[in-house]
């Protein structure tokens, strides 16, 4: 029947399609009723053209607040010659949207852009074939504007050609893409499509999703995680302690514990009042002993990169620098704690959550339930910004367990202390840098040794029901980064050594926006800056002298020009006043793209308070689809970097984490927010690369170097809390 309608509606539609293609039409199923992922080589997987001449694009990347859902539509609209008002997308759903992999590593445009562009180009080619037959005009004489195809003095709309019927076209692999010189939509600052709803209470965040007959759930865990690997073992649960809340039920599987109630407030109170005795966990090093513990632990060592001979390069040079720098654990701390809703039935499950990867989460839930993945449907609802692997997978697992135990749909909202206390933290780091420059101000040798553990691969909920802890596979991005650690400079003798710590002896780790790069750049770029200082060279000039890559030079120049940088040696204007100012410059990245930054800061030598007054950030991310969004991303990165450099540090003692809310884990507020200047170095002829995290390392470096410029003292550890700043200044005085 579908095929008959298809042919009737399409008229000359079969022209250009093979017999096999039209037979496939008979098997066409209603979208959303079958477990995905749909075949990525079918145009229908990616696009539907509606009778009203609008289009729906099916995209496998999540809107996380970065504007990706708008930017990917810009790419599709550009290729299809549609207006942005004619095109929309749908929520991610394992029964509907293609599997493009997870929305991480700033991949939406980098990896997703070409996929969407290819799909749109294939669809355009198929539409032109249909139009050619309909208009009786050769394809190469057709033109398209706003979904209207014209040729031979006549025109037809996409909607008239396809109108809600499937394409049934397999990718040809040869569909031409539009030359960048003809772009009208890509490269422009189109406003975000989600903003009006978000400012007017019309946007359905995950936290607002409800289904009929559901219960409200809360997990019950110790406040603050213990050593990863130790879990949290229940000694006893006193169910009588919540007898005063009759609607509440205690649910338990192994050490996984939760409560459900018909009323949310009852669930909140029951979770807080339930008396549970937990086993005393094995001892953690705590903040005070952390870095010493890391430095002396048994590690798995590897050489990340080596060229020339660092030992001879260091020994023979005119100027050398050697320093150890320490970085803390940082929390994702999404502004709204993660939330999820599950309806688990004996043979199927529907889970709504804020995962960065619907198909990845479906696999993890399949393992958790022992249910085939095709029986599980995962739908994405945006929560608050996540900046990496926050508790979105854990909350999805926890609510799945609660729904299974309760036999009803359950909505689970993590409390602030669940999210802060059981996060996959960005790991702490210890970096040792040795570097040398010759008398001409050229870097002669550079060595970086880094200590940190990797990422956990067992969510807390799974761990509590008895799943063994494991480590996230693949080492590259979990260790010393060859790009941020000296990779932008031409250095003849270089050695990068990674010291991997055991994942189970510390806190639970995970990827957090620009993983480890703030720590790397803090150490590495201070060493480079110190070489500039020792050689009597301006910091910007010294970096230029040691770079030949035009794209690194491009962002360095862009940041310096935005800040109106004037050459002088660092720390040349030291003052005896209590309130002093300084400026610093730095470069860095994460996996791809190029970041440069300048910081202007103010240091109060009496109180130890450090405030960034103005931060400048420049990025070269190749072809930037929407420069407005990338400016927003740069702004966010600069402010978040200031927060992480001045305020943020996960506190923990022997038993576990004690940073459980915004009082015990402070972040930057309005009163200390810097002015920001964002510069996009647009390169339309280059492949698009990530833009969500690559300025942070540069900004961290610039802030550290600005501190030296203001005080003549190098900070060895961040965040720059008043106590740490005063200790550094006093230490320098007495030394």
């Amino acid at each position, binding site marked *: 029947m579908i095929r008959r309608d298809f042919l009737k509606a399409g008229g000359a539609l079969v022209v250009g399609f093979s017999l096999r293609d039209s037979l496939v039409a008979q098997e066409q199923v209603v979208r959303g009723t079958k477990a995905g992922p749909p075949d990525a080589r079918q145009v229908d997987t990616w696009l539907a053209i509606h009778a009203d001449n609008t289009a729906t694009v099916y995209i496998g990347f999540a809107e996380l607040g970065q504007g990706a859902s708008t930017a990917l539509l810009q790419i599709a609209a550009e290729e299809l010659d549609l207006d942005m008002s004619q095109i929309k997308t749908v929520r991610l759903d394992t029964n509907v949207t293609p599997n493009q992999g997870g929305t991480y590593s700033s991949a939406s445009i980098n990896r997703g852009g070409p996929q969407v562009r290819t799909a749109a180009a294939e669809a355009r080619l198929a539409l032109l074939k249909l139009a050619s037959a309909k208009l009786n005009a050769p394809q190469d004489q057709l033109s398209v504007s706003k979904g209207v195809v014209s040729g031979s003095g006549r025109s037809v709309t996409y909607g008239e050609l396809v109108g809600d019927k499937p394409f049934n076209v397999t990718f040809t692999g040869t569909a031409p893409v539009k030359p960048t010189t003809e772009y009208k939509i890509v490269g422009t600052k189109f406003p975000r499509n989600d*903003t009006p709803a978000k400012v007017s209470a019309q946007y359905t965040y995950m936290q607002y999703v409800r289904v009929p007959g559901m219960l409200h759930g809360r997990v019950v865990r110790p406040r603050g995680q213990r050593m990863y690997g130790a879990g949290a073992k229940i000694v006893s649960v006193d169910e009588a302690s919540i007898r005063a809340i009759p609607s509440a039920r205690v649910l338990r599987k192994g050490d996984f514990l939760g409560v459900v109630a018909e009323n949310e407030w009852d669930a909140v109170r029951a979770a807080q009042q339930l008396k549970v005795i937990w086993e005393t966990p094995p001892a953690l090093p705590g903040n005070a002993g952390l870095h010493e513990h890391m430095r002396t632990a048994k590690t798995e060592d590897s050489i990340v990169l080596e060229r020339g001979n660092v030992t001879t390069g260091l020994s023979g040079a005119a100027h050398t620098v050697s320093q150890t720098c320490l970085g803390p654990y940082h929390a994702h701390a999404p502004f709204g704690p993660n939330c999820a809703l599950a309806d688990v039935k004996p043979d199927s499950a529907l889970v709504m959550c804020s995962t960065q990867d619907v198909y990845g989460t479906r696999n993890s839930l399949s393992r958790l339930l022992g249910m085939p993945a095709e029986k599980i449907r995962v739908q994405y609802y945006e929560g608050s910004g996540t900046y990496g692997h926050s508790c979105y997978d854990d909350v999805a697992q926890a609510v799945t367990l609660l729904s299974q135990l309760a036999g009803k749909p359950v909505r689970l909202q993590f409390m602030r202390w669940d999210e802060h206390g059981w996060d996959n933290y960005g790991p702490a780091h210890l970096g040792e840098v040795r570097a040398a420059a010759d008398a001409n101000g050229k870097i002669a040798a550079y060595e970086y040794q880094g200590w940190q553990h990797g990422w956990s691969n067992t969510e807390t909920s799974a761990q509590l029901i008895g799943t063994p802890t494991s480590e996230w596979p693949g080492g590259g991005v979990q260790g010393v980064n060859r790009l941020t650690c000296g990779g932008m400079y031409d250095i003849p003798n270089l050695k990068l050594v990674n010291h991997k710590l055991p994942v189970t002896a510390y806190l639970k780790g995970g990827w957090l926006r620009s993983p480890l790069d703030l720590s790397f750049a803090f150490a590495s770029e201070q060493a480079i800056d110190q070489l500039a200082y020792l050689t009597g060279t301006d910091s910007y000039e010294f970096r230029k002298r040691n770079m030949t890559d035009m794209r690194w030079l491009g962002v360095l120049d862009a940041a310096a020009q935005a800040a109106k940088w004037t050459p002088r040696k660092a720390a040349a204007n030291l003052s005896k006043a209590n309130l002093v100012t300084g400026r610093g410059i730095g470069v860095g990245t994460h996996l791809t793209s190029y970041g440069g930054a300048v910081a202007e800061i103010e240091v109060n030598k009496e109180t130890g308070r450090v405030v960034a007054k103005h931060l400048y950030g420049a990025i070269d991310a190749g072809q930037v689809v929407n420069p407005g969004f990338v400016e927003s991303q740069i702004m966010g990165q600069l402010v978040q970097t200031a927060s992480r450099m001045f305020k943020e540090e996960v506190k923990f003692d022997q038993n576990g984490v004690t940073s459980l809310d915004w009082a015990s884990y402070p972040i930057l507020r309005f009163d200390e927010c810097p002015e920001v200047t964002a510069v996009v170095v647009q390169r339309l002829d280059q492949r698009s690369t990530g833009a969500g995290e690559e300025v942070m390392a540069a900004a961290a470096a610039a802030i550290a170097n600005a501190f030296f410029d203001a005080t003549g003292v190098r900070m060895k550890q961040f965040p720059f809390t008043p106590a740490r700043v005063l200790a550094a200044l006093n230490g320098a005085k007495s030394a």
Partner: protein
Amino acid sequence: MQIRVNERSWTVNAAPDTRLLYVLMNELQLQGPRFGCGLAQCGSCSVLVNGVETRSCVTPVSGVEGKSVTTLEGLPAWYAAQKKLAKAPALHPVQQAMIDEQAVQCGYCFNGMIIKSAELLSKTPRPTEAQIRTQMNGHLCRCGTYPRIMKAIQRASVAMAGGGR
């Protein structure tokens, strides 16, 4: 119990000590106030109670009996009443300014940011940057949108002075 929210009277079934936020989200099904910390630390749950910015996550529902609660949904009408406009605009000027400045990233904090900005502008129509920083300091944003929020408040201030658009 009867409570007045967005100039409408609602009968609610919740126990008196239930936090107002849960009543607004679950019984009234509003999508402005939202859970952020439950500790009055972040501002994501903010509403106006008799025109004063209030953290609904720690306010018992019984505490607003006999008072007038305004959520993000009711902000344009509240503004129209303040300004004695014949008709409520689609958006409060500060909501429009947040769009014009493209201030939003994930947008989760914007309920509180907009509620607090509206309160600020009702008391201080032409705030200085220092006043904005001080008044807004109890509201957190994790995406780092503070610079554009400050610009949006100033933009709204200008728009409001120009005839209360």
